[in-house]
C-alpha cells in the first residue's frame, strides 16, 4: 500500500525522523518496501498483511504511528449540513441478496458542479498512484484511501425507477462497466441495479450508464459492505481488480461506513458545492456487538518470553483503540476497536502487546534443552545410495511431479489404476520444444518419462555423457483413502543395457553383498524386447530395466541410445544391511582357475553359473563371467563360448594344486551333465 508522507502528517505529527518511524512501522508489522520522492512529498510503500485491512487507509497507518510514538492522532469529524429535502422521499434501496451485501447506505447531494479537483487533492492522489478524474470521483477515491472504505458515486438522475436493488445477476445479464467493456455476470456476483438494469458490480466496479460525467448534477453516494468471498470471486473471474475490491476482499470496518459517507459528502459540499439531502438510507445488518476478550497477564510472558508489566500492556492496548472493561492484578478484559476485526482472542492481544513493545526486546540467547536427534536408518541407506550413484558417474536430476498425459500413459509399470489428474495444470514448466505435448496435469506414476525428457533436452543442447538419476515419489491411486506415494529411483543413461545392469548389480552388492537381482522377461513398447527385463530380489519386485526402443525414442524425440531403469526404494531399503557384521577373512592364499566352455546358444549364463557354484561347493569363493564369443568354424553353428574364472580358497589351510584340480574336475563334470558344456582345452 502506497502512503503519502504529507497526507499522513495531517493526522499525526511524528516526533522522530521519517527513517525512524518507517523503521518502527517495519518492526511492528508494516514492512517498508521502498519510497519515491514525488514533488515535495514521498510515496512510501508499506506491505500490509491480509489480517490488517485497517492499514489500507492513511488513517490506519497514522493510528499505528500514533501508538508507536505515543503522539496524538487527529481524526476529522465530518458533520455536513444536510438541509435538502430528505433522500427517503425520492429514493429507495432494497437488498435482495443479503448473502452478498450485508449493509448498504446512500446519501444524496443535489446540484453539484462537476469540475477538476483542486491542486492539493490531485497531488495527494498522484502521490499514491491514483489518476485524477473529476472532483466527485476524486473525492470518493480520496476518502477510500483515507479510511479504507470504498465509495461509489452514481449520477442520480440516470438511475431509473428511483431505486437501487442489490441482487444476484439475472440469466445472461451483462454490465457495461466504467472501463467501457462489457462483462457477463455470473451467479454469486453482487449486482447493484436500478429498477431496470445492472448499474454496477458491487464492490468491484461501477457501470458506465450511471457514472459521473461533466453533465452530472445530482450524485448518490454509496457506502456499503460486501461479502469478501463474493468480491474475490467476481474480481478474479472477470479479472477486474480494483482498489475497492482489494479492500472489500479483506473486509472493511462496518462501523466506519457512516463516517466515510459523511466525510465524502462534506468534501463534495466543500469542493463541488450542492445541497445534501437530509437523512441517509441505511439498509441491511447493523454492526454486531464486539465480544470482550480476557487477557491473563502471565500469557504475555509465556508467549513472548519477556515480562511486560501489566500496566504497560494495558497502555499499549489503550493507545491501539481497545477499551478496557475491567482489570485486576492478573488480568484485563478489553473490547477491540471495530477496525481490528483480526483481534478476537487472548493470543491476538498478546501479539499486539509484543509487536508494539518491540520484538527487538525478545532475547535470542535462551538455553535450548539438548535433545538427541538421530539419523533414521532409511536416511543412512539413501545417503549411501546417493553417494554410490554419483561415484559411478550419475548426476542427480530433479523433475516435476506433474507431467503431460502422453508421458503419463507412456510408462506405468507400478499400477494399472488411472492416473491422478490435477484440476489446475502446471504452467511454464515445459521447454519450448515440448509445449505442444499437452497440459501438465497428470500426477506421474513413473519417473522415467520425466528423465527421458531431460535426456532429450540434453541431446538437443549437444551435451555429452548424459547419465542422470532421480529419487522421487510417484502417485498411485488407491480404491480408498489417500493415494499411495512410493519413492522410486530412476536412471537414464547413455550406457548400454549391460553397463547399466552392472551399475544396478554393483549398487545392490554395495548395499548388501549377499543379495543379487534376477531378471525375467518384461515386454513393454518403451523397451527394446531383447534388452529389457523385470528385476527381482529374493522373490520381491525390485524394478525394471530396458534399453529404449525405437518407438520410445520417437515418442520422446531423441536419437541417441539410452537405457533406463526404475527401482522401488522400499525394496532397496528392505535389502540394505543396516549394520555390517564383520566376517573373518581367510589368511590362506587363493587359487584361480579359468574355464572356457562351449555351450549351445540356449544356455543362459545364470544357469551355468549356478551349476559351477553347486559343483564348487564351499571352497568356491567366487565365480565371475569374463567373456562371451562365438567361433562357428571351430565349434559349429548355434554354439557360443563362455569364459569364466573361479577363485578357490579354504578358510583352514592352503589349498594344494591337487585339491584345486579335483574341484575343477567336479565343475567340468557338473556343467557337462547340466548343460552339455564342453571344456575347450
Amino acid at each position, binding site marked *: 500500500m502506497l502512503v503519502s508522507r504529507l497526507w499522513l502528517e495531517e493526522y499525526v505529527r511524528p516526533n522522530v525522523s521519517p527513517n525512524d518511524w518507517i523503521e518502527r512501522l517495519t518492526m511492528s508489522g508494516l514492512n517498508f518496501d521502498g519510497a519515491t520522492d514525488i514533488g515535495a512529498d514521498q510515496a512510501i510503500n508499506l506491505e500490509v498483511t491480509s489480517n490488517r485491512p485497517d492499514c489500507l487507509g492513511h488513517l490506519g497507518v497514522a493510528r499505528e504511528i500514533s501508538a508507536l510514538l505515543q503522539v496524538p492522532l487527529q481524526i476529522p469529524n465530518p458533520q455536513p449540513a444536510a438541509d435538502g429535502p430528505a433522500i427517503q422521499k425520492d429514493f429507495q434501496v432494497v437488498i435482495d441478496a443479503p448473502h452478498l451485501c450485508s449493509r448498504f447506505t446512500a446519501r444524496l447531494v443535489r446540484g453539484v458542479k462537476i469540475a477538476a479537483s483542486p491542486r492539493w487533492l490531485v497531488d495527494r492522489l498522484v502521490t499514491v498512484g491514483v489518476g485524477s478524474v473529476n472532483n466527485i470521483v476524486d473525492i470518493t477515491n480520496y476518502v477510500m484511501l483515507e479510511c479504507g472504505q470504498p465509495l461509489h458515486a452514481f449520477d442520480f438522475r440516470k438511475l431509473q425507477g428511483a431505486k437501487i436493488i442489490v441482487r444476484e445477476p439475472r440469466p445472461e445479464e451483462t454490465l457495461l462497466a466504467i472501463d467501457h467493456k462489457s462483462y457477463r455476470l455470473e451467479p454469486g456476483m453482487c449486482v447493484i441495479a436500478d429498477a431496470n438494469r445492472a448499474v454496477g458490480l458491487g464492490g468491484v466496479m461501477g457501470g458506465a450508464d450511471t457514472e459521473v460525467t461533466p453533465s452530472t448534477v445530482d450524485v448518490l453516494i454509496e457506502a456499503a459492505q460486501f461479502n469478501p468471498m463474493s468480491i474475490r470471486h467476481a474480481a478474479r473471474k472477470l479479472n477486474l481488480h480494483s482498489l475497492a475490491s482489494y479492500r472489500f476482499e479483506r473486509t472493511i470496518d462496518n462501523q466506519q461506513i457512516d463516517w466515510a459517507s459523511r466525510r465524502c459528502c462534506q468534501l463534495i459540499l466543500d469542493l463541488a458545492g450542492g445541497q445534501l439531502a437530509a437523512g441517509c438510507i441505511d439498509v441491511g445488518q447493523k454492526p454486531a456487538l464486539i465480544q470482550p476478550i480476557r487477557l491473563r497477564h502471565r500469557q504475555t510472558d*509465556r*508467549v513472548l518470553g519477556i515480562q511486560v508489566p501489566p500496566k504497560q500492556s494495558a497502555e499499549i492496548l489503550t493507545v491501539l483503540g481497545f477499551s478496557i472493561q475491567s482489570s485486576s492484578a492478573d488480568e484485563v478484559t478489553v473490547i477491540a476497536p471495530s477496525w481490528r476485526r483480526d483481534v478476537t482472542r487472548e493470543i491476538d492481544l498478546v501479539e499486539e502487546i509484543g509487536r508494539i513493545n518491540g520484538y527487538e526486546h525478545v532475547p535470542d540467547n535462551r538455553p535450548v534443552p539438548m535433545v538427541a536427534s538421530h539419523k533414521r536408518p532409511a536416511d543412512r541407506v539413501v545417503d549411501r545410495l546417493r553417494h554410490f550413484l554419483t561415484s559411478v558417474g550419475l548426476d542427480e536430476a530433479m523433475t516435476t511431479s506433474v507431467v503431460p498425459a502422453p508421458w503419463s500413459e507412456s510408462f506405468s509399470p507400478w499400477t494399472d489404476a488411472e492416473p491422478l489428474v490435477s484440476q489446475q495444470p502446471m504452467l511454464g514448466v515445459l521447454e519450448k520444444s515440448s509445449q505442444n505435448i499437452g497440459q501438465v496435469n497428470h500426477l506421474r506414476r513413473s519417473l522415467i518419462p520425466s528423465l527421458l525428457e531431460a535426456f532429450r533436452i540434453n541431446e538437443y543442447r549437444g551435451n555429452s555423457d548424459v547419465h542422470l538419476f532421480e529419487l522421487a515419489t510417484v502417485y498411485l491411486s488407491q480404491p480408498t483413502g489417500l493415494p499411495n506415494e512410493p519413492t522410486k529411483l530412476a536412471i537414464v543413461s547413455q550406457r548400454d543395457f549391460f553397463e547399466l545392469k552392472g551399475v544396478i548389480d554393483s549398487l545392490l552388492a554395495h548395499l548388501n553383498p549377499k543379495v543379487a537381482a534376477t531378471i525375467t522377461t518384461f515386454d513393454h513398447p518403451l523397451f527394446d524386447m531383447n534388452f529389457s527385463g523385470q528385476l527381482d530380489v529374493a522373490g520381491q519386485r525390485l524394478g525394471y530395466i530396458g534399453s529404449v526402443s525405437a518407438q520410445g525414442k520417437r515418442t520422446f524425440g531423441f536419437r541417441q541410445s539410452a537405457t533406463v531403469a526404475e527401482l522401488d526404494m522400499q525394496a532397496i531399503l528392505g535389502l540394505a544391511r543396516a549394520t555390517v557384521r564383520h566376517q573373518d577373512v581367510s589368511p590362506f592364499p587363493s587359487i584361480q582357475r579359468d574355464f572356457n566352455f562351449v555351450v549351445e546358444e540356449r544356455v543362459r549364463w545364470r544357469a551355468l553359473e549356478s551349476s559351477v557354484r553347486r559343483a564348487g561347493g564351499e571352497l568356491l569363493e567366487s565365480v565371475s563371467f569374463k567373456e562371451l564369443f562365438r567361433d562357428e568354424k571351430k565349434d559349429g553353428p548355434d554354439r557360443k563360448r563362455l569364459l569364466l574364472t573361479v577363485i578357490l580358497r579354504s578358510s583352514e589351510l592352503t589349498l594344494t594344486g591337487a585339491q584345486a584340480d579335483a574341484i575343477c574336475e567336479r565343475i567340468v563334470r557338473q556343467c557337462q551333465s547340466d548343460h552339455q558344456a564342453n571344456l575347450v582345452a
Partner: protein
Amino acid sequence: MSIDANKPADIALTDFLDQLNRLCESAQSTFAAATSNDLLEGARVEFLGAKSGQLKSVQKNLGSIPGPDRPAAGQRLNEVKSAIQSAFDHAKQRLEQVGQIQMRDPKIDPTLPGPAFRVGRLHPITQTIEELKDIMGRLGFTPAEGPEIEDEWHNFKALNIPADHPARDPLDNFYLAVASRHHHEPLLLRSQTSTVQIRVMEKIKPPIRIISLGRVYRPDTADATHYPMFHQMEGLLIDENISLADLKTVLRLFADNYLGSSVPVRIRPSFFPFTEPSVEADYFWNGRWVEFGGAGIVDPNVLAAVGYDPDRYSGFAFGLGVERLCMIRHQITDIRYLFTNDVRFLRQF
C-alpha cells in the same frame, strides 16, 4: 757360481717389484677405462684370472726371488693384489651405477591427460537440504515426512485456515480432479509442509522437535523467480513454556551455522494463519536485511485441532523455501535452471 739350466735364474728383487708396479698401473687404468660389464669382465680375466691372469703369472716368479728378498717381494705382491682387486671392485660398482642412471625420453609427453574418471554430482537442492538437515539435526530436530497429496483437514483446516480463506481458492491450489478420486473428500497437492506437522502431532504427544522437508505445490506460472513446485523446510518445537525467545534463539543458532558466522537476526510481525504471533525472520547479511522465512508461535487453534491443551503446551514453527536459500548461496539467477536438468548446470555443484 755355476748355472743350473733347469732351475730358473734368480730374479732381482727390483725387477720383480718393477713388474708388480707396472701390472698394478696397467690393471688400474684398464679397469677404470672399462665402459661396459663385458669389457670389465674381459679385463678381470686378463689381470685377475685364476688360471692365466697376469697377476697369477707374476706371482709364479716369487719362487725365483732369492730367499732373503722373498718376504719383501711377498709383502708387495699382496699389496698389489689387493690394489688391483679394489680397482676392479670400484669399476664394477661404477658400472652398476651407470646402469641405474635414467635417460630422458623426448617421445614421452607428460602433459597428455590421464583417462578422466567421471564422478556425478548431487542436485544443488539435495545438497542444500542435506546441509539444512545436518544443522537442524545438531539442534535436536529429527526429520519427519508425510504425503504430498493431502486432504483439506491437514492442508488447511487443522492449520487454522478456514473455508473462506483466500489460500483455499481452488485456483490457487492443485486440487485433484473429481474423477481422480474414489471418495468424496477433496484432495490436493499440499501447498506447505506444515501438513506433516499436523500428522506428527496427531500421532504423538509433546515434546516434539521435528523438521519436515519436501516438495510443495502452488499454481504460479513458472518464471525466473517462481515455479509451481518447490521445496520447503519447516521446523516445529512443542513443549511446555516455549516462547518467542526460544524461536529467536533457534533462528540465530541456525543462521550462525548456515551462514557461517555470527549473524544478527531480527523478527518482525507478519501474518500466517497457523501461527500467532506470526513473524518474518530477517538476517543481516552482506550489509542488508535479507528475508529468510516465516515463523511464529503455533496458534492455539492448531494445538487444539490435534488435541493438545493450549494452556499446557506451546511451541514455535518456522518455514523457509529451500530453492531461495540454494539460489542465494550459489547465485543461481533463474529457478527454472534447477528443474531443466542440463548436465552442464548440474555438474557445477
